[in-house]
């Protein structure tokens, strides 16, 4: 019976809080980013194949739905990168007290929004 329970994390028993939500978001964005590598692979394979296949893939990505997917991917990338820096700082022993963990958590969320908006402002201008 012991083998059927999850080893970690026990998502069901905790009250949602910033720390746990950001940890789960780190995992979720990591899964999205790894899975989304298929898009990069498709784009490159189309580019290597022919101008026609490249135009087709470019057309799909330029479609509003494609742009929405790219926006989601970039936001996941920026969040995972910033929260990854937070993790690396923790690994080096910095920012580990509870007030600091909340403060750097808020900084990561704020910068994710600012950099995502800035990135797409740069793309569309």
């Amino acid at each position, binding site marked *: 019976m*012991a*083998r*059927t*329970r*999850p*080893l*970690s*994390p026990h998502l069901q028993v905790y009250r949602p809080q910033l720390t746990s939500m950001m940890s789960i978001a780190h*995992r979720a964005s*990591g*899964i999205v*980013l*790894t899975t989304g*590598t*298929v898009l*990069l*692979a498709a784009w*490159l*394979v189309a*580019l*290597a194949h022919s*101008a026609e296949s*490249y*135009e087709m893939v*470019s057309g799909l990505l*330029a479609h509003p739905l494609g742009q929405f997917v790219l926006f989601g991917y*970039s936001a996941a*990338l920026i969040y995972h*990168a910033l929260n*990854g*820096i937070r*993790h*690396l700082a923790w*690994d080096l022993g910095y920012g580990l007290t509870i007030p600091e963990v909340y403060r750097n958590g808020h900084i990561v969320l704020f910068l994710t929004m600012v950099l995502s908006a800035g*990135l797409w402002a*740069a*793309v*569309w201008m």
Partner: protein
Amino acid sequence: MAEYPAGIGHRRRHSGVSHWRWQRCSAVLVLALMTYFTVLLASLGGLDHDGATALVGHPANALALAVLVTVGLWHGTLGLQVVIEDYITIKGGRLMALMAMRAAMAIIGLATLWAVSRIAL
């Protein structure tokens, strides 16, 4: 040897410390290369076929992209391994999920490397 629940003591060829260390090392490399390509792509906006071919075909970019995809997929493989080990508790199912995930990562990686080398060479 004590009886551990599934997952602990699994895959004894590699230690947890080396998994942890490589995840961090790959993270730093992916962070640097991803920043470079994100800024590069954002500054260019839309790319037509010739522009994209010139960009990916540039030797330095092709090399950087090949390294990014290889190390990035490796980083993703290490991450997905932890997710699978945390949530798939049936022993056979876990092993199958791990192998399927690694096979998928290998296919994506090989397709990308084939494309990049075809464009650049």
